[in-house]
């Protein structure tokens, strides 16, 4: 137990927190990185990607949904947890169809950046090669479901910030996929606009602007320059 009120230990270091904050929020605010994909400072915790798992008093949980409490002993940067995170990343890579070398998001992609940061050197598992639909019906944006990781950030952004509810997830288990709120199911027929918050929230390359390609060469982009573990505190997550 630590004597300082409103503080817990993360890998042995004291982390101060405001009452009501989650472990992840408090850790990021004090400059300690915990890998995460579906968590975003602008939105309510979701807890689905599980990249931010930590062990608290011998129990595993998602640090984005666990409230910070005084005196907690939280483990995050351990070989075991990083191994588990690597496996989760590998799962996301084999579930979708991710072709980093030819992807416009390369270098700005959080999935890719975390894979580098956690030293994921291969996909390990057999790829699912699931057919995923690409939707190019919108004049300004592509929707490429091949790269979607089901984090629901676009769903939340469109519903909670844009007030449009353009996106939703439908299906169960492996069938889970992004659906668009329009009679045709196409993005072009929806209320989606390039000025939407949802247009710039995707951590991977599932929602990409048209007519912009490789303006900055791969190799000189955000996460090419600085690892994600040092960039996560700026809240500037846009690609």
């Amino acid at each position: 137990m630590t004597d300082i009120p409103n503080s817990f230990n993360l890998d042995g270091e004291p982390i101060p927190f405001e009452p009501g904050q989650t472990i992840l929020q408090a850790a990021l605010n004090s400059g300690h990185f915990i890998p995460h994909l579906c968590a975003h400072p602008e939105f309510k915790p979701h807890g689905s990607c599980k990249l931010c798992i930590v062990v608290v008093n011998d129990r595993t949980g998602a640090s984005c949904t666990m409230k910070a409490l005084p005196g907690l002993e939280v483990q995050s940067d351990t070989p075991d947890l990083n191994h588990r995170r690597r496996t989760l990343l590998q799962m996301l890579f084999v579930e979708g169809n991710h072709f980093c070398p030819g992807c416009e998001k390369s270098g700005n992609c959080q999935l890719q950046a975390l894979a580098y940061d956690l030293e994921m050197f291969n996909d390990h598992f057999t790829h699912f090669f699931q057919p995923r639909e690409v939707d190019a019906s919108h004049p300004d944006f592509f929707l490429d479901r091949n790269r979607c990781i089901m984090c629901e950030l676009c769903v939340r952004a469109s519903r909670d910030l844009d007030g449009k509810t353009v996106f939703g997830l439908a299906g169960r288990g492996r069938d889970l996929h992004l659906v668009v709120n329009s009679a045709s199911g196409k993005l072009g027929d929806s209320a989606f606009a390039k000025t939407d918050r949802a247009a710039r929230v995707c951590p991977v390359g599932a929602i990409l602007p048209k007519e912009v390609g490789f303006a900055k060469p791969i190799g000189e982009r955000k996460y090419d320059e600085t690892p994600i573990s040092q960039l996560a505190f700026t809240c500037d997550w846009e690609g």
Partner: protein
Amino acid sequence: MTETSETTDSILAPIIAHYGGDPGNLLQILRDAQEALDWLSPETQGAVARRLDIPVTRVAAVVRFYTHLYDTPRGKYRVLFSHNITDRMAGSPALMAHMLKRLKLKRGVVSDDGLVSVGKTSCTGMCDQGPALLVNNRAITRLTPRRIDEICDLIRARAPLANWPAHYFRVEDNIERADMLLGSAYAPGEALRAAIACGPTGMMAEMRKSNLRGRGGAGFTTAVKWEACRDAKGDERYIVCNADEGEPGTFKDRVLMQSFSERVFEGMAIAGYVTGARKGFVYLRGEYSYLRAPLEAKLSEMRRNRLLGMSICGVPGFDFDIVIHMGAGAYVCGEETALIESLEGKPGLPRIRPPFPVICGYNNQPTVVNNVETLCKVTEVAIHGGLAYAGTGTRQSAGTKIISVSGDVERPGLYEYPFGVRVSQVLDDAGAYDAVAVQISGAAGQCLTPQEFGRRIAFEDVPTSGSFMVFGNTRDLFEAALNYSHFFEHESCGFCTPCRVGTALVARIMEKIHSGHGARYEFNELTRLHQLISTSSHCGLGATATNALQDIMTKFPTVFDRRLIKRDFEPGFDLDAALARAREVSNRDDANAHLAEGVDA
């Protein structure tokens, strides 16, 4: 916007009106709409969304989540064989093959005339009288080749289900051993009047003394749940009866709902009396749709006898009523927060906990979710008192427990014992003479070896939701493990990464071993995946999805050993098989252009 045809609209209008135009009833509305229209076309989904003024994505999310809602045509007659391991052991695969042959169908593909489709579904809860199937949500048990022939004839003749022989649909109770609950006489209103005599505080005290624990498997103390709900802040409180009995091999709740429903409903009313809740829900799994009409009739009868409704038993202010809510094929809805989401008309995705339902449940109000059997036990506590109740069973597990026994036994059915009974006694009583393994608590539970048959059924030793699937000495437990892996791949809700992807990976690896290409490498992969999925998943489904598999791997090593190849590794990719499509397209199949099986690509 697509124009809705007048027929669709005229069908939807009264259904939506019946449910008060409330999007919270979306799942019920879609179930009824499908009953009338056979499937839920994009047009129907759009019309429902417009009438309820909700995004069509929300309708699509519900349709795609529940297995028994269809967004593609599945025929006038939709036949689903129960895919549980006990049904399979009783001959279900051969019967399905027979039916497919008779109807000239492929599994899951609708006949050309749009008449019929035949597929498979997760355990239908008829394990003691299987093999079983569902036709348009109605259960048919005790299938034989002859009965399959008759069903095929009825389908071809387009006979309405109402005209099919009534004995097809008969579901037996099969109570083989009765004790406190199944064996005692019961007068309607007896428990309610006893609870009223104690008063709400007195009845809560009896509940505490009884040490009654939840019968759904987790074993949480019921009185603690009730007290937390009673003391939580809220405008309304709710009592939910979890009758989403989806655990493979479990069917006790089906019997309780069929023949002891009055006790279930009285248990709910008592919970309402003690906690201050005025409304209750029964969440009945879609597979038990046949129970709905008799349950509605029972509710009406109880209202007439003033055992439900306003001023129950003449006590002013004691108001409580019950609504039946149907599921539509989703095992995860047995998890209490997923169940609440489903009650609210959404996909059954487990919520983040805390807050727990007793604080923030249905419509964000304090909600008690109790298992069917637990609620029956409440009536025993009311009638006999908490101390008397605590007198049976063991120290930590008071009262009796109903066990659903199926598989390789002479007398499958329900067996009620005081807690503490040894596994071996249950097996002896049921006539399991050659058991080599018992799967306890369904696919999410543990698999016991004969060396463990001396263990006791109790929360302090072998806890169970009540399923006993018995495997005789001719059975291959690998088949069971493979069956469980397919079950969890199918039932994972998909919300969290480890469970969504992990259960699918486990199933692929199990298939690879099954096809004779698995080495020690695959065996070790299963262990690694188990460690990740069981510790990192969002809810209990993922946490338990690989339990039985791990038990079989560690306790029955020969089951896997004899299937594993001796090489270090063999690729899962079969190059020769992958060329099949090319051969088909090019219309060439040279004998010399085939690769030997297992060749390294």
